[in-house]
């Protein structure tokens, strides 16, 4: 295990290593994707944990990739700021690891994806070059947005070393409700009602387990505006119950808790308008699974003790332009059909990692 203290050390370590390299943050999401090459050198990124630039009045921050997301949020909260990104296990996971794993949560409905907040990056290529992409200011069109290529790429295109983000003011109020006891289709319909003006929610999630189906909705912003929305929602849905901000963390983290014992994690996506027609098949194919569905984003995760019939899920989702990825669990068809433009992706991998050192075989791009 290597533990570089600076980006320069990371780069020279990559240059000097001849075999495969696995970048690793807190190690919480190493199970995602194909298994790492057995002869890999693991690079522990957690020493790159410095805030290199944070001027609160600029509403931007630059941090080492080894910093824990929750620690960054703590620093920001002092100035009533935050990064509106609710990734699972954010109290322990590093920002570089979360970016590389492509993890985010239900705040995507209102705040967009981490991609929309990421301003720039330093990454290290397979031949040990330190590359800068983007910058630190909120608007910047100088050069290609190469930093976006590393999100969800499992460290195969470069090692994320330092990242700059734009920030948001912490909302004055943060209120949530849950509604339990309906079909997924009905929960979906309510979610869409709760999205229509006057509603402007920050997050919407359908949690479907073998035991219950529950819709979660969250509003953040000026206190009076949040109160009005929650009041209207509760008047229209008398069975709605209030929920705390902490319950969203709990919800996101539960599938990762040891006691939960979920051996399988699937990511599924399709254009949000197509989701509704997909729900009946979803439950029929995987009756023992727990689903987290972001109905307005078009993103779902499935957690289950055993592998469901992935081929059947694909057969139901692919006609709508969707996909199914086996994030955790054994499956020979982990990624599904070969992505369009795989040839360009292969060339890119070859250009930036000519000796195929960075997490070889881990991702859909070999």
């Amino acid at each position, binding site marked *: 295990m290597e533990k570089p203290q600076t980006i320069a050390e990371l780069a020279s370590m990559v240059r000097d290593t001849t075999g495969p390299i696995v970048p690793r943050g807190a190690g919480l999401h190493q199970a995602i994707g194909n298994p790492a090459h057995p002869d890999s050198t693991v690079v522990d990124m957690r020493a790159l944990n410095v805030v290199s630039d944070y001027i609160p009045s600029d509403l931007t921050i630059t941090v080492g990739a080894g910093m824990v997301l929750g620690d960054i949020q703590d620093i920001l909260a002092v100035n009533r700021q935050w990064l509106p990104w609710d990734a699972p296990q954010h109290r322990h996971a590093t920002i570089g690891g979360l970016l590389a794993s492509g993890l985010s949560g239900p705040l995507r409905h209102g705040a*967009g994806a981490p991609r929309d907040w990421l301003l720039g990056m330093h990454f290290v290529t397979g031949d040990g070059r330190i590359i800068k992409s983007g910058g630190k200011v909120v*608007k910047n069109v*100088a*050069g290609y947005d190469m930093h976006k290529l590393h999100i969800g790429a499992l460290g195969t295109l470069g090692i994320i070393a330092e990242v700059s983000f734009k920030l948001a003011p912490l909302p004055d109020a943060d209120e949530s409700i849950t509604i339990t006891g309906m079909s997924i289709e009905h929960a979906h319909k309510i979610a869409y009602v709760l999205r229509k003006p006057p509603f402007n929610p920050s997050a919407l999630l359908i949690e479907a387990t073998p035991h219950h189906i529950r819709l979660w909705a969250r509003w953040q912003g000026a206190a009076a*505006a949040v109160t009005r929305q929650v009041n209207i929602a509760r008047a229209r849905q008398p069975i709605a119950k209030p929920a705390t901000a902490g319950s969203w963390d709990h919800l996101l983290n539960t599938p990762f808790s040891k006691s939960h014992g979920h051996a399988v994690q699937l990511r599924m996506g*399709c254009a949000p308008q197509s989701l509704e027609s997909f729900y009946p098949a979803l439950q029929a194919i995987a009756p023992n699974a727990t689903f987290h569905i972001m109905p307005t984003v078009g993103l779902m995760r499935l957690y289950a003790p055993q592998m469901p019939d992935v081929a059947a899920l694909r057969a139901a989702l692919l006609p709508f*332009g969707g996909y199914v990825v086996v994030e955790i669990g054994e499956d020979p068809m982990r990624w599904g059909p070969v992505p369009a433009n795989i040839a360009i992706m292969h060339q890119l991998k070859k250009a930036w990692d000519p000796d195929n050192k960075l997490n070889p075989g881990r991702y859909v791009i070999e």
Partner: protein
Amino acid sequence: MPNQLAPEYAQLVHDLAAAIGTRYVLWRPEELMMYEYDGSALDMARPDIVVVPATTAEVAACVRIAATAGMPIVARGGGTGLSGGSVPAAGGVVISTGRMSKVLQVDDVARTARVQPGLINTDLSEFTAPWHLHFAPDPSSQKASTIGGNAAENSGGPHCLKYGITTSHILAATVVLADGSITDIDNTAPDAPGYDLLGVIVGSEGTLGIVTELTVRLMPNPEGVKTFLAIFDDLDSASDTVSAIIAQGVIPAALEMLEGQGIALVEQSVHAGYPLDAQAVLLIEIDGMHEEIAAQTAQIEHICAHFEARELRVAQDEEQRKKLWSGRKGALAACARLAPHYHIQDGVVPRSKLTEILRLTRDVAKRQRVHIVNIFHAGDGNLHPLLLFDIREEGIIERAVAASEEILLACVNAGGTISGEHGIGIEKRDYMKWLFSEDDLWAMRQMRACFDSRGVMNPCKLIPTGASCGDIKSARAGAKALAAGAWI
């Protein structure tokens, strides 16, 4: 001028005409003149041929034919760009998207629209108005610039302060690659496996391929909008107000500044009600839910009073709001009253450095004896120093370029960048080295080659390329006059 086709292009024109029809292949000098410039003032180059295809298949056919003949290929939308992105620096074939301007589909459930690249920006939001949805990116050129061009340049606009720049609003693109193949780069299903190629296509200034269809995100219209005009007797107070608004956690929908001579020029031209003797005015727009607007109004009133604004006006109705905005959006053209020629920059600084950089701008203007008016996106720290001059004055172009370079370099040294929304194009290509190392530029060149190994798509743009593209400054044909239709 000869009205004869150069013999070396006869076969090419014949093949292009066979693919898309004779009337859509332009080659006579008088036809080509319109395509030799864009909204940037200093760079001009004439294409050899212009084609105006109507479909993705026709674009692909044109690209195949042009690439086979070894011709550079340059896409062009509304021609309003401000960095020379659509100027055919190395000649070649210009592909105009002028006949591809339709809205193909609106999905009010998904809140998306599928459009052709030649669609004018404002036409989309007008089209989607019945659904109470709009396309958020609103470059000041929006009445003339196209969605395809906005995507190529990753355009901004006043409202991207709150809603983000174009890249966050593009969900999918059909792209014709350099070999004439057609591919869909689609993020409508979020987080699909594979690298995020759409992330690099948007903002690639036509160097990776030509976008022939786009799926864009539509935003719900806000419940309410409130627009303020804050008037200041002192530039520092105005820029301190901007920094304070952001620092106190108010993200307005837009936060724009006009300063110095620009105010009087705009007022005389547009009659938006700006006081002629003000040193700086801020146009502040907030939107959202009524309660949010009420809370933010109180904060803005407090901050403006603290920094001793002379007056804080509120637009009482939509007509007054449009009037206040007309001053901002018509600002560049209004400045023609001061001098006939212009050069516009697009640097960005961290927002806490605004006061400092505006002072420097005034200092540079005095030293280089150039009029500089700042009309810009203050909330983003995105400056638009507008250099105004008359090219008949000896040495003025050199002084203007020197002034512009000094300001841009100061932006970089303050931790900012050389372009916030106008793109690099030809104009800022050589300044990329101020920001990026040789290794950074190597990574960009490598990436570009993965899409276009022969370098036929918009060559000589964005990345410093060395000798083959010649020296920009010597290629500059001289500034052109400010036209009525020019925007920043």
